[in-house]
């Protein structure tokens, strides 16, 4: 039964969804905005999807680097974790050979950061979908 939570007093939300929180998290990770779409939050889903996919695409267009695992460099590992946050977009980029391995021009470093941040933002969005599905976030 839905109930409103009072954000000012910090009381816990009691609104729950029929969608499994784990499913919302996984869907949101694989496809940007899919977690919110499963919960019927269509406008949020569209905005999240557009923002994250556009940011990732700009990063690719700027010839940013797509990190790969097991390079041995700690910063590369962190970059890989960030990139992996983009879900299927990352796997698509790897399969199709998008992005440059070395950064050749200064603006390409911006592209690398765009790709990493798109992945990190997608993780934030997926966790938000999980919170909505579990009722931890009221609406």
């Amino acid at each position: 039964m839905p109930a409103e939570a009072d954000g000012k007093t910090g009381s816990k939300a009691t609104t729950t969804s029929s969608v499994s929180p784990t499913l919302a998290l996984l869907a949101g990770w694989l496809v940007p905005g899919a977690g919110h779409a499963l919960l019927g939050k269509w406008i949020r889903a569209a905005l999240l999807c557009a923002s994250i996919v556009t940011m990732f695409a700009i990063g690719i267009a700027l010839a940013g680097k797509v990190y790969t695992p097991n390079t041995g460099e700690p910063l590369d590992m962190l970059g890989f974790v960030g990139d992996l946050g983009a879900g299927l977009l990352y796997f698509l980029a790897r399969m199709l050979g998008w992005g440059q391995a070395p950064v050749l021009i200064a603006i390409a470093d911006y592209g690398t950061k765009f790709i990493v941040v798109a992945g990190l933002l997608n993780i934030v969005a997926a966790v938000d979908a999980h919170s909505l599905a579990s009722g931890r976030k009221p609406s």
Partner: protein
Amino acid sequence: MTISHFSAVLLFSLFTSIVFGITQRAEPNKMVRFGALCFALFVVGTIAASWAMWLIKP
């Protein structure tokens, strides 16, 4: 594709602020306000940092 540094700042700030606004607030009007605040802070902060770097350059 190439873009100017300032265009990169604006694009980065715009998309990041949209995601922050949606995920960090629960009500639509608060989402818009928080997103706008984030956008302004990103842009103003970047310009301030740029001037700071210019002032301390050797």
